[in-house]
C-alpha cells in the first residue's frame, strides 16, 4: 500500500479525537530538530473550523475491540492499514521541517494485545526522539490494559499522555464499549497523576467524552468532569459531539451532531477551571441540562439576580468573574487599572469587556447603564437570548430586503 493511502486511512480513523492542543509543555531541548511552545501553536484550520496543530494519526486502525460507536471496531468491514515506525517518523519529520505541524499525536487501535500495541507506540516514538532527535511536541494515547512499565516508558518520551474515558458513566461504557473497562482507564490516570513531573508527561494528561451517544444528562457529564479534574488533576476534558458513523440499534439516530450542547459543555468546563464555579452552582436535579438559549454563566446570573448589579470599581476579583461579559483577562485588567483611576463604561470597553452582555449586571461608579426600572429578569433574559441569536436574524432581514 502506498504511503499516501495509508495516511488517508489512518488520519481518517483518528479524526474523531477532539484533542488538538499543543500547549502546556515547557520541556527544554538543547540539540536536534524542534522544540515546544508553552502557549501552543495552531498551524492550520480544517474545513470544520478545528485547529490542526499535530499530525493526528493512528498507528493502525486494526482493533480487537468492538466498541459500538467507533469507526474502527472489529465488526466493521473497512480498509485496514498499519504504519511502520519508520514511516511515522518520515512523515512527522518532513511535515515538521516545513512547519506544517507542531508535533505528533499518535493513537492506535488495539492490535494483538494492549501491551503489544503500546510497545509499538513506544518503539515509534523512541525512534523519533532518540535516532532523529526530534524535540517537537508529542501527544500519545495510553492503551488501557497495558502494563505499568510500558506506561512509564511511554510517559518519559512524550509531552502529553491521554486515556479516553469515552462515556460519562460506567453503565454507558458497558453498553457501548463492552471490551473496555473503566478501571483500566482510571489506573492510567492515577499512575500519570502520581508520577507527573518535569520529565514525565510534562504537559499533563487529558481525556475525552463522547456526548449524546448515551442518555446521560449534562449534570452527570459535568459531575464526571469535575471529579476527573479533582482526582487526577487533568489538564483538559474534551467533549466530542457524537457523530453517527455506525448503524446499531443501541445507538441513537441523530440528524446532526449535538454541537450546541457540546458548546455549552465547553463553556461550563471553562467556568469550572478558571471562574471558580462548581457544578452544583450551574446544574441540579431539577435542572439537569444546560439552557440552550443562553450560556451557563448568563443563566447562572439570571437565576441569582439578587447578587447583581455589581459595582466594577469595588467588587472582588471573584465577583468580577461572575459577571457575564467579563473574562479572566478583562477582570485582571480591571483590577490593575481601577487602583489608578475610576472606571467608566467607556474604559470597560477598552479593556475587552463585552459591554452588550455586561451592561445589565454592573454599575460603574454607582451608575446603571440603563434606566433602573429595566433591571428585571424577563427584560434581561429576552435581550441576552436575542443577542446570542442575532447573526441569523440579521441575515434573515437582509434576505427580505433583497426580495422586496
Amino acid at each position, binding site marked *: 500500500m502506498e*504511503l*499516501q493511502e495509508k*495516511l*488517508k486511512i489512518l*488520519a*481518517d480513523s*483518528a*479524526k*474523531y479525537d477532539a484533542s488538538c492542543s499543543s500547549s502546556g509543555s515547557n520541556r527544554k531541548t538543547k*540539540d*536536534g*530538530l*524542534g*522544540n515546544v*511552545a508553552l*502557549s501552543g*501553536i*495552531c*498551524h*492550520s*484550520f*480544517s*474545513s*470544520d*473550523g*478545528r*485547529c*490542526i*496543530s499535530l*499530525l*493526528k494519526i493512528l498507528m493502525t486502525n486494526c482493533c480487537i475491540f468492538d466498541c459500538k460507536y467507533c469507526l474502527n471496531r472489529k465488526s466493521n468491514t473497512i480498509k485496514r492499514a498499519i504504519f511502520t515506525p519508520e514511516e511515522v517518523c518520515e*512523515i512527522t519529520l*518532513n*511535515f515538521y*521541517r*516545513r*512547519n*506544517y505541524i*507542531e508535533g505528533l499525536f499518535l493513537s492506535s487501535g488495539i492490535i494483538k494485545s494492549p501491551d503489544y500495541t503500546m510497545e509499538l507506540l513506544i518503539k515509534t516514538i523512541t525512534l523519533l526522539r532518540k535516532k532523529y*532527535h526530534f524535540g517537537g511536541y508529542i501527544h500519545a494515547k495510553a492503551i488501557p490494559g497495558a502494563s505499568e512499565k510500558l506506561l512509564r516508558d511511554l510517559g518519559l518520551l512524550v509531552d502529553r499522555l491521554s486515556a479516553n474515558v469515552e462515556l460519562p458513566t460506567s453503565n454507558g461504557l458497558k453498553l457501548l464499549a463492552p471490551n473496555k473497562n473503566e478501571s483500566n482507564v482510571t489506573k492510567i490516570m492515577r499512575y500519570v497523576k502520581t508520577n507527573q513531573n518535569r520529565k514525565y508527561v510534562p504537559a499533563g494528561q487529558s481525556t475525552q467524552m463522547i456526548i449524546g451517544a448515551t442518555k446521560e444528562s449534562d449534570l452527570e457529564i459535568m459531575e464526571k468532569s469535575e471529579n476527573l479534574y479533582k482526582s487526577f488533576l487533568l489538564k483538559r476534558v474534551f467533549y466530542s*459531539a457524537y*457523530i453517527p458513523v455506525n448503524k446499531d440499534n443501541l445507538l441513537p439516530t441523530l440528524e*446532526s*451532531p449535538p*454541537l450546541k450542547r457540546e458548546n455549552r459543555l465547553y463553556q461550563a468546563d471553562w467556568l469550572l477551571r478558571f471562574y471558580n464555579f462548581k457544578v452544583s452552582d450551574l446544574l441540579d436535579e431539577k435542572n439537569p441540562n444546560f439552557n440552550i438559549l443562553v450560556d451557563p454563566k448568563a443563566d447562572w446570573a439570571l437565576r441569582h439576580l439578587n447578587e447583581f448589579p455589581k459595582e466594577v470599581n469595588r467588587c472582588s476579583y471573584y465577583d468580577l468573574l461572575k459577571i457575564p461579559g467579563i473574562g479572566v483577562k478583562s477582570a485582571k*485588567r480591571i483590577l*490593575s*487599572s481601577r*487602583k*489608578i*483611576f475610576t472606571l467608566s463604561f467607556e*474604559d470597560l470597553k*477598552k*479593556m475587552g469587556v463585552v459591554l452588550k452582555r455586561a451592561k445589565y449586571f454592573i454599575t460603574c461608579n454607582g451608575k446603571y447603564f440603563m434606566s433602573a426600572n429595566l433591571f428585571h429578569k424577563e427584560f434581561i433574559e429576552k435581550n441576552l437570548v436575542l443577542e446570542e441569536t442575532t447573526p441569523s436574524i440579521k441575515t434573515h432581514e437582509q434576505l427580505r430586503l433583497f426580495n422586496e
Partner: protein
Amino acid sequence: MNNDCYLYEDTFLSLLNLIVYLIKNNIKPGNIKNCQYIPNLLDHVISLKIEEDGNIINQIIQYMGPYTFRSIYYVFLSTEENKELILYYLILNGMKYKEKVLYHRNLKCVEKTIKIAKAVLHEAHKYKGFTRFKELENHILYAEIEPTNDILILISHHFQKRLRTEYWIIKDVKRGILSLYDKKKYYLILEENFTLETTLLSQKENEIENLWKTFYKTIGIKERKNERCRRNFMPKKYWKYMLEVESEL
C-alpha cells in the same frame, strides 16, 4: 497648529534617541516621521543631528520595565500611521508613571499602544503557525510571507530555536527583506543584496506536499463543516502561501 515634523533615520534606536531628546529639551513635536517621509505643504520638516546612544534601551527598560519596552518595540514594528507620535506620548507619560504607565488605560497613547502591540504580537503568533517552508534542491528551506506588520524579526527568532538544525530563508515579499539562518544565527538582508543559488525544489517536495494536502482534506469532519469558524481563525489574507488552501482561493 504645530507643524513641526521631526525626522529620524528609520531605525528603532534612532527613533528612541529622537523622542528622548525631544522630551529632555521640552520640545513638543507636531509629528515624527522616518526620513523617507514625503512632507506636505504645511509641514515644517526638522532634521536634528543627534548622537545615537545605544544605552538608551537599557535606560528605558530600567525606567519603565521590560514589559513596557517590549510594547514600545512592537508598536515600532507596526504599520500604524502615527506610531511615532503615539510612542512619543507613551514615553512622555512613562517618565511620569514609570513601570505603571501601561495601567493608565484611560490615556489615549496607552490605549493605542496596547492595542497595536497586541495586533503585532497576534500576527507574529499566527505566522509562527502559518508560515510554510518548501525544500529547495540544495536542502535549504525557503518560505515566503506577506505580513501586515514588520514581524519578520519576531518569527526569525522563533524559527532560530525551532529549526536550529536546518538552513532556512524567510522572505517578506512586500518589504523585500530576507531572513537567512546559517545554523548559528539569523541575518536580515535586503532583497537587492541577495540572490538565491537555486529556485528548483527538491525531488521529494511534491510527494510531501501531496501527503500534507491529503492529511488536511481527511482530517476535517464533514458532519461538522463550519466555514465561518475556519475563516475566523485563519483569515484569507494568510492563504496565498499555504499549500493546503491556496487552491480554494
